[in-house]
């Protein structure tokens, strides 16, 4: 009887499949780490944008501006600061504390106060929104004027194009 070494094709295929799987798994792992870094950058941009606008009293001044004026300043800020690979949308909502049961002229969210507050205004601005959104983060910031009856909420949504 003669002895021989047999390399079966299924052995080779098995090795190739295993090697491919290992490569794929490691590739996914590396991509996830990059995604985490990108997400941190997005969050930093969102927080910086809200804080800087607040420090420039953009939101507070907005109480005394028309919707068009406020939108113009929001758009200018986003155009000046948003990186090319990022979509950004900011929405500023202004509320009034209402002791009555009706919201009167501040009825954007209905005629009945919600937890005592009525939505008076909602102004938003965005950069060009791309349909292919890879990652997204949302940050919020509350602000007020010296008036006890007014408060606002700025929300920024940012995503990678």
């Amino acid at each position, binding site marked *: 009887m003669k002895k021989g*070494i047999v390399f079966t094709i299924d*052995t080779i295929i*098995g090795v190739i499949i*295993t*090697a491919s799987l290992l490569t794929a798994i490691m590739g996914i792992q*590396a991509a996830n780490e990059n995604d985490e870094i990108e997400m941190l*950058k997005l969050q930093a941009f969102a927080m*910086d944008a809200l804080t800087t606008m607040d*420090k420039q009293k953009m939101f507070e001044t907005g109480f005394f501006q028309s919707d068009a004026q406020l939108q113009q300043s929001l758009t200018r800020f986003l155009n000046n*600061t948003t990186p090319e690979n990022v979509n950004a949308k900011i929405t500023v909502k202004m509320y009034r504390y209402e002791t009555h049961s009706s919201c009167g002229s501040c009825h954007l969210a209905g005629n009945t106060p919600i937890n005592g507050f009525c939505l008076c205004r909602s102004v938003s601005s965005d950069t060009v929104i791309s349909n292919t959104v890879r990652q997204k983060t949302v940050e919020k910031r509350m602000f007020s004027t010296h008036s006890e009856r007014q408060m606002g909420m700025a929300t920024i949504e940012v995503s990678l194009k």
Partner: protein
Amino acid sequence: MNNKRGQVIIFDLIVAIAIFTITFLLFYNQFFFSSNDEAYDYNRASEKINQLGYFLISTSGVPNDWDETDVEAIGIASEKNVIDETKLSMLVAMGIANSSNMKQKLDIQAYNFSFSATHPDGALVQLNNSIYQGNASFGTVQESKNKIKSTRIASYKNSEIILKLEISK
């Protein structure tokens, strides 16, 4: 009929296991050690520059009225995301005149570092005071795959500016 039981270890199975083991070890070594070292360095540098950006624009440094002689931690903000002109000037002056001391205070001795403050149109912020006169930028970082950039937004003289920090090994 005489039934004998036996165990057959096929030779090609042994060869397959050997090839698999060698391949696995090669991949393991390549990706989990050398590649992960690079990834670890990259992640560590990313973390470092993100922290650095945060501290620069969020704190006024230690001590609060620091200068080059007594600074323990560098911060250039008068309040969060509001840049103080004097501290920005001191940072730039220090970065140009004594970059090793500045890197030590920023805990980035192992890296090349560059910093710039620009207006939204891309023009560098101009400083003109008793501490420093000139562009608000210093340092150079060569283009490479290891270069890591952090961009922060802050308010300076009531206008938004963009701070760019770059590091590489």
